[in-house]
């Protein structure tokens, strides 16, 4: 609808109001309630959708974690209320500390490297040069590959005896590294693969963020004699802050729930060396012949709580940013 049209319309409405008698109170109430109903009608699909696919599963997961859900309850449907005992068991378990530490290292190291490399590449590609489009497209390949394919390829490349990475290192006189099978290296191995997979996402978002910065600012800085390094730290980086914040938050949530890469490459092993909370939750629920859904749900909920805490931190930080 053009502005002219809407202007004409509102003028006509004003004209109507002036000519006709004002509508009765009942009429007004009826039309208001009809409008209210229509509003509810429009919002209902979203509410139903959210309720069915988000709120209910979440409620079920919380419910599952505070009950003692055994095989028998699978059939009878009633599981005795267990309070927080599942959470206590999970936290007291010998797997909890390594899983929490591994998750922390995995998430923060992944994000730090993905973000730094993604940003560096974005800045690099921002000054378009010949073939920059092709090169940038190549960087997107990891994103396009199914995770199953990239993780399997990584695990072949990092194989101790026949992997290409070790043969390469051996050419430089570095002895065999058991990337996937030694407790010291397995987390590093899955980290390398995950960083590689996450770079394109950071590259794309940061690149589009860069394009929203006005060229004039850079020109003005150049005239003032700022060198490349100063331009980056004084202009690019501060102006990218809102984009960076959302990229980091999304990266955090995505990395926190990473499962496939680790599962394919090391299955959380050897021992618990690369077990993260997400892997542990799966192992509890589906990893053995005897499912322990309550504990698995408890670990899953801990993950959700961690994600929510960081989202709240983000929202707070954003609000402060908007105020300043």
């Amino acid at each position, binding site marked *: 609808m053009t502005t002219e049209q809407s202007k004409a319309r509102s003028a006509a409405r004003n004209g109507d109001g002036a000519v006709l008698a004002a509508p009765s109170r009942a009429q007004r109430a009826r039309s208001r309630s009809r409008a209210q109903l*229509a509003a509810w*009608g*429009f919002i*209902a*699909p979203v*509410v*139903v*959708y959210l309720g*069915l696919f988000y709120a209910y599963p979440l409620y079920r997961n919380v419910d599952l974690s505070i009950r003692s859900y055994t*095989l*028998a309850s*699978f*059939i*009878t*449907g009633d599981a005795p209320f267990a309070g927080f005992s599942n959470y206590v*068991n999970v936290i007291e378990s*010998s797997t909890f500390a390594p899983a929490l530490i591994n998750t922390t290292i995995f998430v923060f190291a992944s994000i730090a490297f993905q973000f730094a490399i993604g940003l560096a590449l974005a800045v690099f590609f921002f000054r378009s040069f010949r073939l920059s489009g092709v090169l940038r497209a190549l960087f997107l390949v990891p994103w396009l590959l199914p995770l199953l394919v990239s993780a399997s390829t990584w*695990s072949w490349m990092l*194989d*101790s*005896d026949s992997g290409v990475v070790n043969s390469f290192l051996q050419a430089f006189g570095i002895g*065999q590294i*058991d990337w*996937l*099978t*030694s*407790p010291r290296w397995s987390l590093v191995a899955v980290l390398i693969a995950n960083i590689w997979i996450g770079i394109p996402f950071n590259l794309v978002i940061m690149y589009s963020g860069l394009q929203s910065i006005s060229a004039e600012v850079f020109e003005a800085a150049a005239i003032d004699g700022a060198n490349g390094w100063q331009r980056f730290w004084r202009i690019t980086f501060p102006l990218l802050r809102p984009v960076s914040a959302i990229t980091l938050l999304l990266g955090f949530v995505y990395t926190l729930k990473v499962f496939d890469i680790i599962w394919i490459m*090391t*299955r*959380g*092993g*050897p*021992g*618990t*060396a690369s077990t993260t909370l997400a892997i542990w939750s799966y192992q509890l629920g*589906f*990893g*053995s*012949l*005897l*499912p322990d859904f309550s504990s698995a749900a408890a670990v899953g909920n801990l993950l959700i709580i961690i994600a929510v805490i960081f989202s709240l931190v983000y929202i707070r930080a954003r609000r402060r940013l908007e105020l300043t």
Partner: protein
Amino acid sequence: MHRSRRASAIGAALLALGTAAAALTGCSSSASSGGGSSSSGSSAGGTYTFWDPYPQYSASSAWAQLVSKCGTEAGVTIKRTAYDTTALTTQALLAGQQGNSPDILLVDNPVVSTLASAGILTTTAQNGLATGAIAQNILGAGVINGKTYGVPIGANTLALYYNPTILKAAGVSPTSITSWATLTAALAKVKAIGKKGITFAGINTEEGSFQFLPWFWGAGASLTNLDSPQAIAALTLWTTWIKDGYAPNSVIGDTQTTSWQEFQTGDFAFGENGTWQKATAAQMGAKVIQIPAENGGSAPVPTGGEFFTIPVQKNTATYATSAKIVSCLSSTSNIVTTDNTLNYIAPTQAGQQAQLATDASLQSWVSAVGVAKARTGDNLGTKYPIISQQMWTAVQKAESGAASPASALQAAQSAATAAINK
């Protein structure tokens, strides 16, 4: 005006969809609490549902045709659905929860105790299946607290494949391998000629436990006591092999398939693997011996293979027909054909004799199955999965050097005890 009418129409349609979805889920949840058998079959005629873990067999395969033939003989139509082994357990549990279990369920043997304790399966006393001719050690996986919950389709197990070319070059006679000491000595000779020793699956899943059990049991250890000196000896054997370079480091993450691929490269003298590889082993000229126990003799090996079970139905009249179908599928002539295709050893003596009559090379496998044990046997039932998980975790820790065999197994035992008493 038109636009707003269209918009409200779309809104109404969406709302209708939403409420329909809500109504539908309401429907399904009420159906689940009420229960309802998927089998429309009454005692005679109708359609019977049959689930198996053999997605590799299509509708035109001999197996699928045998299934439908046995259905026809019982006067019913069979609707067969094949799931991946892991998916089948979850599917069976979910179906049990929804009250629409299949009429016949062919399921991996260690899962039988899980499903039985969930109350999904009928006992042979209820469904009338005959178990008399079946070897006790194979039937063991289906027996919980004295009740039998199904009949085995056949059994597979583990043995030690060897590469005759490498052994000859290393000057090792396969018949000399009768104990751990003689095996380790053979591995040393193989390594001395620049070849690789042995490969197995030491992964942190059930497969890892399955492959470790022959050594664990071969030392005389028991699953109820994971940190016994015998158990420590078994784990020390594996870790020493890795440390001394007799086994590759990759065994820590190897599945039975990847470890077999390593053996197939022709660089390895030995490969611990299952009956199901005997065809590919024959192709590469590999031979097989039984896994030695610590101090000589054959080690007890775990049985693999599926069980025919008849899940609980609302209409108990279907059991007789289901039992008839299972008896047909497990009759000697049929089961021999099936077991030959699946590379299984028949669970009855008559079946084994029939298999040997056509293929004498099966003898070592028949003897291996003869000394095999059910993982869930010794009345462990649903305790087995808990113990097994701790066992493969300990094996992983020790293999990777994160802990010594003794401390890894002590941790495993205390974790298993805690989990069982939970």
